[in-house]
């Protein structure tokens, strides 16, 4: 592989506290190196911004519910699609893009990694089929555990070791990355059309509470020493007044210390926090509680979060929170898809329009941005839209721009039909802060890489890390005053080099790169009871044979397997 030397760029690398210094970055054999030889291909980055490849900690990009959305919504393809160029696959869809478009669009924005945020284990072969049809961007997937019958039974009986052995087996079987929890207990209750809205609502039949599920899974995660922490979508998502449940859930992490060899410090990652920071006791007095939630998070070193910021688009909501999607459908009366998955989880899909003419949507937009603007530790606050729930991932550049430009925020508030009401229910209008390029790099590179336990590969530009380098046509010394110019520069990178190969030049795809699938193999002591339980449940309750459930190797053709040893 050729050597590359990126010369004279303004480099932002929070892992080494490099804040816009003009310097060179060298790549050899797919990795960052100290210096390049005389034959290196030179890329002139003077007057431009240089960062490592972006890391998306939470997006729904592959698998059954994403695809249910694509199938259900032909109209999503009426938004403009980039026409196929010779040598590349067609690109279709906007909020739920095709796999090909997904890979190309992440690359155009300079992203190296994306985490598929919710994999139903039974459907994991499907998730991996989509992942291997998604070019360029590295991916991993989080299996969902918060409503899994094995987990509910083991944790009810306080059997952490058994829960750990089962989770280790399932990560291997599904080629999954870590422990995702969605509406703990509530999604199992949805099997009967019910829900768990508070931490103490017992799950029907299983008689375990969401609180016990979350605490048990945090303990199990740290016992296993997984690279990532428990990754949670709390109970009561999307409802006025839910911020109390959110904070109560995060409190379950108090006093727990991360145990792992990956340098991860948090024990809980709270995802799409925007949907969980709501005040009021109904839609009439709906208001932002971003400050309350962020104040709590600011003081808790072992908590990380991502925004789930609303982008004011027509989009497609989808979540393993089955009862929420049913509830949402009752509010907007559009079409509704649901898939309950035996013994494991559920999913719902509903189209949604975040309209600037609707007060609640304006408030939601403000909350997403407030969470970042009020945060004091940008290494623990990550940018996401919970793609496609609050908006498509292709709007990240617009979110950066809102965060970086007070002027742009004011323009947007001014465009709302109910500006006054949005301003009254939030504090967005009073926030002067403008996020810096360095902070953007923290929120999209160093921070999420560390939280995922992947700081050796991604998030920075130190020798030995993956050769993922993006060059944006943005001069830090002279930021464009027109917000749309800033957004455009982030949308289409001037250059993106992924593991040493130039995959994007002038915003166009050059190459299909060499994408990988990351998964975690947790090695645990032999556990005959769990082995027997798995065997029994497949005989009695599942409708798929155990041999046909475990994802076969050929479905993840370019694996990067992270080994973890659990001490007995």
């Amino acid at each position, binding site marked *: 592989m050729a050597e590359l030397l990126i010369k004279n760029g303004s480099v932002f690398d929070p892992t080494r506290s490099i804040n816009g210094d003009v310097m060179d970055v060298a790549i050899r054999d797919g990795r960052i190196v100290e210096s390049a030889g005389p034959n290196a291909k030179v890329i002139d980055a003077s007057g431009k911004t240089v960062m490592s490849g972006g890391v998306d900690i939470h997006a729904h990009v592959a698998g059954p519910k994403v695809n249910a959305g694509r199938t259900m919504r032909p109209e999503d393809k009426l938004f403009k699609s980039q026409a196929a160029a010779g040598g590349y696959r*067609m690109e*279709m869809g906007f909020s739920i*893009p095709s796999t*090909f478009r997904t890979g190309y669009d992440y690359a155009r924005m300079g992203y190296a990694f994306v985490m598929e945020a919710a994999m139903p284990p039974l459907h994991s072969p*499907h998730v991996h089929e989509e992942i291997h049809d998604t070019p360029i961007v590295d991916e991993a997937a989080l299996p969902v555990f918060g409503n899994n019958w094995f987990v509910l039974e083991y944790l009810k009986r306080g059997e952490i070791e058994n829960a750990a052995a089962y989770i280790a087996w399932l990560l291997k079987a599904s080629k999954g990355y870590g422990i995702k929890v969605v509406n703990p207990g509530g999604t199992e209750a949805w099997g009967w059309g019910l829900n768990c809205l508070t931490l103490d609502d017992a799950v029907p039949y299983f008689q375990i509470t969401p609180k016990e599920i979350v605490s048990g899974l945090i303990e199990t995660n740290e016992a296993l020493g997984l690279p990532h922490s428990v990754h949670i979508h709390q109970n009561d998502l999307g409802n006025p007044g839910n911020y109390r449940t959110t904070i109560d859930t995060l409190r379950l992490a108090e006093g727990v210390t991360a145990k792992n060899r990956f340098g991860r410090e948090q024990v809980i990652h709270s995802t799409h926090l925007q949907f969980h920071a709501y005040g009021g006791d109904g839609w009439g007095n709906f208001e932002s509680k971003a400050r309350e939630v962020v104040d709590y998070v600011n003081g808790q070193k072992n908590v990380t979060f991502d925004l789930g910021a609303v982008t004011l688009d027509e989009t497609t909501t989808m979540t393993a929170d089955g009862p929420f999607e049913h509830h949402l459908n009752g509010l907007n009366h559009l079409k*509704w*898809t649901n898939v309950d*998955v*035996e013994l494991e989880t559920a999913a719902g899909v509903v189209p949604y329009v975040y309209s600037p003419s609707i007060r609640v949507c304006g408030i939601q937009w403000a909350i997403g941005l407030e969470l970042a603007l009020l945060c004091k530790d940008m290494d623990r606050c990550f940018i996401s839209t919970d793609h496609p729930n609050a908006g498509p991932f292709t709007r990240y550049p617009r979110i950066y721009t809102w965060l970086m430009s007070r002027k742009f925020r004011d323009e947007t508030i001014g465009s709302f039909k109910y500006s006054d009401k949005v301003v009254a229910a939030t504090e967005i209008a009073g926030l002067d802060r403008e996020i810096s390029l360095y902070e953007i790099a923290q929120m999209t590179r160093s921070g999420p890489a560390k939280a995922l336990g992947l700081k050796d590969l991604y998030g920075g530009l130190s020798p030995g890390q993956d050769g993922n380098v993006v060059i944006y046509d943005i001069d830090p010394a002279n930021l464009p005053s027109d917000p749309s110019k800033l957004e455009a520069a982030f949308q289409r990178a001037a250059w993106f080099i992924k593991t040493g190969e130039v995959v994007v030049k002038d915003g166009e795809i050059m190459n299909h790169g060499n994408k990988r699938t990351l998964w975690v193999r947790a090695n645990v002591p032999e556990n005959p009871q769990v082995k027997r339980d798995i065997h029994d449940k497949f005989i009695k*309750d599942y409708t798929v044979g155990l041999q046909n459930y475990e994802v076969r190797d050929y479905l993840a053709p370019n694996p990067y397997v992270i080994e973890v040893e659990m001490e007995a």
Partner: protein
Amino acid sequence: MPVTHTQVGCPYCGASCDDLEVVVSDDGKEILEVRNACAIGNEIFHHATKPGRVTRPRLRQEDGTHKEISYDEAVDYAAKVMIEAKKPLIYGFGSTNCEAMAAIGRVAEKGGAVLDNCASICHGPSFLAIFDNGYPSCTLGEVKNRADVVLFWGCNPMHAHPRHASRYSVFPRGFFTRRGHKNRFVICIDPRETDTAKISNLHLMVNQGHDYDLFNAFRTALRGHEIPEEVAGVPREQILEGVDAMKKARFISIFYGMGLCHTDGRNHNVDIAISLTRDLNAITKATIMAMRGHYNIAGPGQVWSWSYGFPYCIDLSKGSVAHMNPGDTSSIDLAMRNDCDAFFNIGTDAGAHFPIEAVKKLRKHPWITIDPNICMASEIADLHIPVAVVGVEEGGVVYRMDNVPIQFKKVIEPPEGVISDEELFNRIYMRMCELTETEPVWIHHPALDVAKAVTEE
């Protein structure tokens, strides 16, 4: 010693059973015994190793006879047809794996083809209804473990999906349904006294073509309004008995078939069935599912949705973007309008299933059938390319009627020299690239390395 393979998938109906046991002879060449399968599934396995299989491509000659040619020649022929046609139509896929469906996407995109599957003539109306109303569904294990009211509307699983009732919907003892069929109240809605009607607790003999009226009556009664003494030929008491059972249910599963989506009303019948399911979710838990016909006919809907965003009727002829417009870009309509100039029949029998007028029009242009077996479509084709039988001689991912992916196994080798659909499509693609002097579009995948190696040899 003969070898017994367990948890083998069955390449027959949409129930996609994966609990078969197949005993294979010492030399791995003969299937001795198949356990657990229905009669038809059984036959598919035994048929594979019977004498008389076509093992080489056959090209029609001037005198009308078929002559054996090599796979290389067949690949070359198919690639040229694909390149030369202005708007080739590729149709079928009821009986192959998802790997093949992904591989054909590359061919279709390069050839500017229309990509369509059997849904076009079976559950297409279901897709139209889903586009309008969504699809509140579940996996079949949920039905087994929870359902206490099961409704079969316009379908007859006792014949069309022989093990559906025993594995998933009526008889099995599930986690919350330990007493099996005693835990379940079964309703059948069908104008005929079918075998499914015979195992039901309640059979509503709806007048043919009046399903929509009956759904309306269900929805009306469910909302507590009066309904007439008789609707669609069904007496009020019977309707109310059904509604009452649903109101008391903890988990309802509605299964429907072609008897609903291919009678008067078509997609509107499915639409109102989905609306009934939505109504029921306001008071209890309810799900709905289409009884998909073939073991992997849900597959193309999945693979092509993630590739193009559309499940069927996908027109790629613009070359830049895909578009779907059933009625316009659907196979039968294209054929009847004479709007395609080459036909690829893959893993199905359009010769038997299409209206004769459509077949006649398609037959004016090159017709290539890709199928392991002799069928009408193979016999009227200009070129028949035999391939390995998926589920028997080739594994791969298939999607069951509930869209659950199941990794099927291979239990025996295909006849000497016979290749898989996937390998065939990849070779056609590589040949198209050679002929047009273009670079293959590739996302790293071991399967293409195989095709590459073969091409380079």
